[in-house]
């Protein structure tokens, strides 16, 4: 029997683990994939107070090692279900605890268009910092309008010969400073009010079809980087805790779910801002509240 089971080893889950470990609680963290969560894809973290600039994977590695050094057990197992009695079933076994902190994070959102799945790893990518170097001197397109899309464009513009930035709206959500940097690059072409409707290619990506104000246009590219945000993956919890219509875990005060003894932290919950700063904040609060309520 554990004191706390933490689902997810991203910044939120690992911060919860750090706080719980420092309070001498018996905990385990389950991670279905790799530790670090979304931040490992970030080329540079420049908006975390006190850290001037660090790669996302270095940040994640530091946090992971910090937690491991406290003796925390991180098990690479996929959580299949939880129940209201705080039992957790993974692909390897069943575990129980006095409290559960859900910090499963989010997945990359897909375009859901023809050939997208078929061409993943063959020109379609969701991680510019992972795959960018395979497109040296080639033409690529980035789809999206948020911070990730803009950072990806900036990163790829130093590697690729041409970068198209395609966005379905007429303005960007991402940071103004990054956009200004992009506008200084002469190998970046910004195409607004356009959505990608089809990816062409058999063995690998050859071109994309975009729809610009009802005009179809074909753009020849070797790589398509999709950066249209994220979507929750909370399906396995839906019978136990309340989920909103977008799929996020409902938490009225930012830490409690609808079930006693089950808490939520990080990108998986309904919140205004999904950032490293808010993820670690959530994690520390979730662990502190869980411990306090368990002792009462």
């Amino acid at each position, binding site marked *: 029997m554990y004191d706390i089971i933490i689902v997810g080893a991203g910044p939120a889950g690992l911060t919860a683990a750090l706080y719980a470990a420092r309070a001498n609680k018996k905990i385990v963290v389950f991670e279905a994939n790799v530790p*670090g969560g979304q931040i490992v894809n970030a080329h540079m973290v420049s908006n975390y107070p006190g850290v001037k600039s660090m790669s996302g994977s270095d940040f994640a590695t530091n946090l992971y090692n910090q937690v491991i050094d406290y003796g925390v057990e991180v098990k690479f197992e996929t959580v299949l279900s939880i129940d209201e009695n705080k039992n957790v079933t993974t692909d390897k076994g069943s575990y129980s605890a006095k409290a559960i902190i859900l910090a499963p994070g989010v997945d990359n959102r897909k375009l859901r268009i023809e050939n997208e799945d078929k061409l993943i790893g063959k020109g379609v990518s969701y991680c510019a910092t*992972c795959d960018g170097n395979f497109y040296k001197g080639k033409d690529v397109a980035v789809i999206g309008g948020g911070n990730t899309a803009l950072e990806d464009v900036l990163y790829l513009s130093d590697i690729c010969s041409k970068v198209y930035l395609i966005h379905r709206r007429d303005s960007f959500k991402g940071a103004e400073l990054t956009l200004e940097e992009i506008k200084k690059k002469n190998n970046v072409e910004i195409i607004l009010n356009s959505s990608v409707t089809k990816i062409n290619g058999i063995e690998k990506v050859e071109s994309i079809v975009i729809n610009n104000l009802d005009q179809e246009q074909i753009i020849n590219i070797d790589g398509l980087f999709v950066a249209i945000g994220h979507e929750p993956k909370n399906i396995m919890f839906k019978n136990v805790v309340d989920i909103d219509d977008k799929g996020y875990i409902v938490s009225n005060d930012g830490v409690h779910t609808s079930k006693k003894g089950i808490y939520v932290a990080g990108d998986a919950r309904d919140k205004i801002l999904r950032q490293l700063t808010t993820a670690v904040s959530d994690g520390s609060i979730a662990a502190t509240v869980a411990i306090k309520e368990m002792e009462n």
Partner: protein
Amino acid sequence: MVKEIKDIEYEKLVKENKKVLIDCYASWCGPCKMLSPIIDKLAEEIKDVKFYKVDVDNAEKITSDFDIMSIPTLLIFEDGKLKEKVVGLRSKSELEELLK
């Protein structure tokens, strides 16, 4: 720790060993870095598979032989032949399944 090899060595190694996993990574790839503790664990636990890693930045042969365009890519060989090319992150248990 998983042994780093030069990519030109891979043909010899997959012939000499029944089962081989090659982790194709790069120093600039965040997810690749985070995958390495999992590969290390697998290497500790699964003794009948030889584990190696290759830095794709210095590996033109292996990247062109297997058309690697995305990392992490894991190449799994059995009896000298490519059995599976795993593109992107997979859970530890999925990888265990593939290595059976």
